[in-house]
């Protein structure tokens, strides 16, 4: 099939995979800085293209080639066309607010592909070394868990699955399924029982484990879970790379496995949760209804007064939350910001790590509206600046500016780092009604003497503020 002799073909493949590994690592490195990030994905994409083309053009890589090679090559083209085509269209269409669940979906596909590689290998029932057999089984297990688990994560964030299913002894049941999968997997890996029934049972258990592990976890914790499954898929890919003797897969999978683990830790830390807590406690969407004593009253302000206050300010810090994105108000907010900047007001955006649906998500949403990243600051950078701000404008955010997190030990959000919006001379809160945040906790900020509430839909309120600022001369 190949147009070169076997030795030259082997060389070509090795060099191509080496180039792919290099481009992946350089691409990820460039993606780690906002200045070079855009070229990073192009580098990594080049690596992917090289690896795919070379693998397709040199199928003599496999030692035992199938007698159906011609048919199989057609099947490869059809599968790539269908899978790639659907993903391309869906990836182009997805709204920026829905990005987290889309990442979960694509990640689950990768896990499923790793499990499929293991399945083809194991259904063949051929002799493996113990190492190859073990890695095939482990990669299959992790890939299967990532596949079904990511599917549930997608369903939850997309609103298809609204409930968190919990019952007593759930952890015990999960452990039982895991133990069962490991026992069956052990029998397969050691060659004790490589029957089709055993392999099928193994994959059923792996998929089941992904479901039962993910169903009890609440929507608010899903980003951490998605990140964890991303790292796990990387690991599964690395293991299957060993099974298929493919260095590009081993390196790329391991890099993602370790980078993804670090990213998961960073995210969990940014959300003030430990990973064990996320996986085994089942908080995430309940919070708790503990309400500390709140004194004072909510003092309303109208849009024209709020607009004047900002127009004559030296410095305004805007605190956006997911509510702003839901109201699609980010474009109006940026328009308002530009007006203020033109008047000589210093404006900055303060982003709490959980301002969007996952750390960094709000930055993406603001970037979509055209806000340049260098006027966006994260919690550590901006918190000392609130004291020098004349106005803190809070739009669609709630728990992340609640001062009870600082001092009320009975509060479920006690200890969570918050943005010190209450330290600004005036706090203006745009709010739809008198409701509470997703955790259902009363926000003490709303009752402070320096806080004014501007009631209304985020987009409408921003439009009124724009009109108010324009009318100031």
């Amino acid at each position, binding site marked *: 099939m190949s147009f070169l002799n076997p030795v030259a073909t082997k060389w070509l493949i090795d060099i191509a995979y080496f180039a792919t590994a290099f481009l992946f690592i350089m691409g990820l490195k460039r993606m780690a800085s906002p200045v070079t990030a855009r070229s990073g994905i192009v580098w990594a994409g080049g690596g992917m293209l090289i690896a795919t083309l070379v693998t397709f053009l040199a199928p003599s890589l496999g030692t035992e080639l199938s007698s159906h090679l011609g048919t199989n090559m057609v099947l490869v083209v059809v599968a790539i066309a269908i899978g790639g085509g659907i993903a391309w269209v869906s990836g182009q269409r997805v709204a920026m607010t829905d990005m987290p669940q889309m990442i979960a979906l694509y990640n689950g596909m990768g896990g499923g592909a790793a499990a499929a590689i293991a399945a083809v290998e194991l259904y063949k029932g051929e002799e493996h070394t113990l190492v190859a057999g073990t890695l095939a089984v482990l990669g299959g297990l992790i890939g299967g868990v990532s596949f079904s688990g990511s599917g549930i994560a997608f369903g939850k964030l997309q609103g298809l699955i609204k409930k968190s299913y919990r019952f007593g002894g759930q952890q015990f049941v999960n452990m039982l399924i895991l133990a069962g999968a490991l026992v069956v997997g052990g029998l397969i890996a050691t060659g004790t029982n490589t029957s089709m029934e055993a392999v099928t049972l193994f994959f059923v258990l792996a998929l089941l484990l992904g479901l039962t592990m993910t169903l009890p976890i609440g929507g608010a914790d899903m980003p951490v879970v998605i990140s964890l499954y991303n790292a796990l898929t990387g690991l599964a890919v690395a293991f299957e790379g060993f099974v298929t003797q493919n260095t590009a897969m081993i390196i790329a999978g391991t*890099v993602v496995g370790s980078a*993804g683990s670090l990213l998961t830790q960073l995210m969990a830390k940014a959300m003030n949760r430990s990973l064990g807590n996320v996986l085994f406690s089942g908080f995430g969407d309940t919070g708790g209804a503990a309400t500390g004593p709140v004194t004072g009253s909510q003092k309303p302000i109208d849009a024209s007064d709020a607009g004047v206050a900002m127009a004559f300010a030296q410095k305004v810090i805007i605190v956006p939350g997911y509510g702003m994105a839901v109201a699609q108000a980010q474009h109006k907010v940026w328009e308002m910001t530009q007006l203020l900047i033109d008047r000589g007001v210093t404006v900055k955006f303060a982003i709490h790590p959980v301002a969007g649906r996952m750390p960094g998500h709000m930055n993406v949403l603001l970037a979509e509206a055209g806000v340049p990243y260098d006027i966006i600051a994260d919690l550590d950078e901006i918190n000392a600046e609130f004291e020098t701000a004349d106005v803190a404008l809070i739009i669609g955010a709630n728990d992340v500016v609640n001062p009870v997190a600082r001092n009320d030990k009975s509060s479920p959000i006690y200890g969570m780092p918050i943005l010190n919006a209450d330290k600004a001379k005036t706090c203006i809160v745009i709010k739809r009604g008198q409701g509470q945040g997703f955790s259902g906790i009363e926000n003490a900020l709303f009752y402070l003497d320096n806080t004014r509430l501007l009631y209304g839909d985020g987009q409408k309120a921003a439009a009124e503020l724009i009109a108010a600022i324009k009318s100031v001369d």
Partner: protein
Amino acid sequence: MIDGIIALYIFLLAGFTGYEVIGRVPAILHTPLMSGSNFVHGIVVVGAMIALFKADTPLEQAIGFIGVLLGAGNAMGGYVVTARMLEMFKSSGSKAKSGGHH
């Protein structure tokens, strides 16, 4: 042939590489970076292709086909959404109308 000990070395070095590459990354890039690393493990499509090339029975062909389809979805979807997100990251220096400072 990659034997066990060589594979261990690769795991070790690639593991450290991933950790170092991502370390100290600003929170603003967490979401695109997760998406980017999600794209990178889309390399699994290559393994699925090799598995499908070697498939003998209709069952193996069917599973291999699903594997390639899913892997291609991972790679293509991961690329498109990462590129879309990163495309939007611009500094105020690159915008005509802005008051950002450097």
